[in-house]
């Protein structure tokens, strides 16, 4: 990861979104609500905090959802 990148679900990419909400919108996930969760640097970001949680270079973001499982 260089100085202007973040890591999203294990892949490096240029930091192009100011907040978690913007990142989800840029990924086409803005409509996702139920079943989705986000962690930044190993800490959960509750849904209500997505709009004001700013992303900075070097952040590691996990975006997960509930899927089938046993």
């Amino acid at each position: 990861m260089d100085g202007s990148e973040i890591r999203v679900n294990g892949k490096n990419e240029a930091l192009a979104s100011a907040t978690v909400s913007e990142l989800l919108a840029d990924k086409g996930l803005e409509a996702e609500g139920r079943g989705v969760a986000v962690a930044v640097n190993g800490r959960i970001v509750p849904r209500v905090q997505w709009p004001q949680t700013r992303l900075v270079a070097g952040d590691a973001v996990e975006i997960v959802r509930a899927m089938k499982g046993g």
Partner: protein
Amino acid sequence: MLDTPQGTGDPLIIAGRVFASRLFVGTAGYPNQQVMLDAIAASGTEMATASIRRISLDGYQESLVDLLADRVRFLPNTAGCQTARDAVLTAELAREALETDWIKLEVIGDRELLYPNVEELLLATAELVAKGFIVLPYCNDDPVTCLKLAERGAATVMPLGAPIGSGLGICNPHLIELICSRSPVPVVLDAGIGTASDAALAMELGCAAVLANTAISKAHDPVRMAAAMRHAVEAGRLAFTSGRIPKRRYAQPSSPQLGLVGS
């Protein structure tokens, strides 16, 4: 609706939540979503498991939540986690994603056997209980481990009958019975179920509930098998609470011995 026992008179209670059905089911491996929905309906279950995975950034995925949220409660799992740390983070993500404190805790120590890593499992149980989770740990069929989990605040213990997905049934019924007779928390038989008689046996041994996934989803007719599991769990529970007769080495005639014709 889900909190009301449906006339069973023998509800299951876990962490204060009342279940009329003693069968929990998984959501993986069905031929298609309609079969899954029909099987879940046929099973009569009130709680189904889900996993937590990285979202695909490449395209649309149908949401399990939208499919099932109105039908069952979710029991998210930490399947695939190999450390307490990963399991705790996954549980926290699950809590946020599914708005439930309940977690089926899996911490795996061997990828081929999918056997629990007991040391990490105990650590994760204590940590998640402290964070307010209702923890249902998947564990070995080991009475000592089960007691340790209960001491750390687990809401149930969920010993395996055989390796996950193996369909081998309950390999050591004696241990499962021992665990059931000594556990201060409900015992849920979690893995290894192959067919209906395995589920009935689990209940006859004293298990409070059974969790089945592969045995249903990979059956030739998952919907019929789901119904079979429902009946098996009900029959096994009825048998357990009825008190079986002792086993004898020799025959014991059931018809009267006096008044035999021709004697």
